[in-house]
């Protein structure tokens, strides 16, 4: 069937919408939101990291910039969530362009260190920027009755599409996650994806075979950064309180690269599988064991997969079926 993937996307969104209408424990929305956010972040990471082979440790930087772009816009004129997301995407995309221009000439571990430094520099800047709350953090009051194109979206009494702002944001997150996966898949099967793959395999040979390596890497960094920024933009509205250590949390950076690596970095489904699986394990662990056990689980799994199945879960199954 030709539009199998597109139909799948619509079905997933439909399922997510029905989920928002169900009357269940609030925690499931929270857990679902976290998992969908990871789907988006690790998919975004994989565009540069998986296809192009450039390990970005600065995910937290892009996410944090997205979050704080949204906060600045709320402070500035009370921007709506869609405006926040679009603006954060543009700002994080430009950040990707600027950072990429300076760091993409670095290879391997040097690139990883430079991107890690980026996150720390940005966190320091935000820490000292009082307009968005500085080191003390900032509380966000979500609008009571948000409208979109004249349609009432959220209303407690049930006149809107959603009863609760969290349900609305959950659905928005699902839309963005599906969109990211669609973008990543389009890249993978297109000229950009093949060029990035050639870069990953051997950058000098790719350049000599006519691949404009710097340009493709910059395009990948911009797309990847913009998606991370958008994922970050929705975060302040969801948690309603943000401070720099949360927005620039290094755990996000670790997860965003561990999930694709465990799922499989060479194809779009890898990060999706990795983040759904690990995200779920983490959420369950938070409830049943402790919130600190997360990183331990990720660490052990990462070591296991890097040594035993470097192609990730998806690669392992594909090999079995051959």
């Amino acid at each position, binding site marked *: 069937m030709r539009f199998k993937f597109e139909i799948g996307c619509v079905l997933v969104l439909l399922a997510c919408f029905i989920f928002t209408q169900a009357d269940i424990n609030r925690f499931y929305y929270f857990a679902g939101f976290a998992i969908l956010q990871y789907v988006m972040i690790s998919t975004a990471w994989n565009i540069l990291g998986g296809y192009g082979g450039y390990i970005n440790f600065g995910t937290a930087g892009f996410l944090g910039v997205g979050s704080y772009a949204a906060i600045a816009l709320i402070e500035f004129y009370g921007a709506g969530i869609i405006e926040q997301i679009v603006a954060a995407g543009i700002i994080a995309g430009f950040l990707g362009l600027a950072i990429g221009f300076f760091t993409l000439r670095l290879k391997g571990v040097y690139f990883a260190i430079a991107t890690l430094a980026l996150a720390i520099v940005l966190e320091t800047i935000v820490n000292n920027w009082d307009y968005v709350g500085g080191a003390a953090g900032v509380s966000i009051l979500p609008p009571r009755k948000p409208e979109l194109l004249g349609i009432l979206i959220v209303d407690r009494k049930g006149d809107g599409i959603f009863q609760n702002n969290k349900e609305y944001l959950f659905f928005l997150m699902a839309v963005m996650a599906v969109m990211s996966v669609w973008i990543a898949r389009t890249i993978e099967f297109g*000229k950009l994806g*093949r*060029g990035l*793959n*050639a870069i*990953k*395999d*051997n950058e*000098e*040979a*790719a*350049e*000599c*075979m*006519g*691949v*404009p*390596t*710097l340009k493709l890497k910059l395009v990948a960094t911009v797309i990847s950064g913009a998606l991370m920024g958008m994922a970050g933009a929705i975060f302040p509205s969801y948690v309603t309180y943000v401070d720099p250590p949360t927005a620039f949390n290094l755990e996000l950076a670790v997860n965003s690269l561990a999930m694709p690596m465990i799922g499989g970095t*060479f194809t779009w489904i890898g990060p999706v599988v990795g983040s759904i699986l690990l995200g779920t394990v983490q959420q369950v662990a938070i409830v049943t064991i402790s919130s600190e056990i997360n990183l331990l689980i990720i660490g052990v799994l990462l070591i296991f997969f890097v040594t035993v199945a470097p192609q990730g879960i998806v690669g392992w199954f594909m090999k079995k079926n051959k």
Partner: protein
Amino acid sequence: MSEALLKVESVTKNFGGFTALSNVTTEVLTGERFGLIGPNGSGKTTLINCISGTLVNEGGNIIFDGQELAGMKAHQRTAAGITRTFQIPRPFHSMTIMDNLRIPIEFVSGSSSSQNEMKDQAMEILETMGMAEKANEETSGLTQIELRKLELARAIAAKPKLLISDEAMAGLTGNEVDEVLDILIKFNEAGMTIIMIEHIMRAVMQFSHRVICLDAGQLIAEGTPDVIVKDKGVERAYLGV
């Protein structure tokens, strides 16, 4: 054979205090089979790195097809018609052989073709190289000669005016050397100018119309193969007597 396709004019390249190329001047004519020899470390690969754009020469000019190459990146030079192979094969190891060839076709020679036309173009080259049946295999299972051939096939897929073959025959047996020579001569007869860097003297002398010899970054001899093998300077460079 007529006017110069490639002009190298007093090209100089330093690595720190070490002069890898010093004032090298030469010409490659359109349609020529051009040999480049010299002992290890004489600057052969440095010269082709400067021509293909992976290194930037500090002094001198390189003019290809009437166009000054200074400031052009390697991928732009490939698009202009210069393609090279690597001394140590550098296949795209995560792709099949077919997909290896599709990279230069998609990015250079056939960028306006459909996916199916690209496949046909790649297949045509693989058939000429005698590798058609391996098209859908991964590169990890290839033998040494197959890797060398893939390296050539991928460069040829960019449809260059000038192909630079950097030791395409190193480590091959006598029969395999002849096989690669036949392939190169076939593409040369179809109009491709070829620079061959080689240590196997039999191959380079049999192949080339004209040969230059580098030693310690300097051009020490230039001429037909017959002249080069009798040249005292070349003998000294290789044998040290």
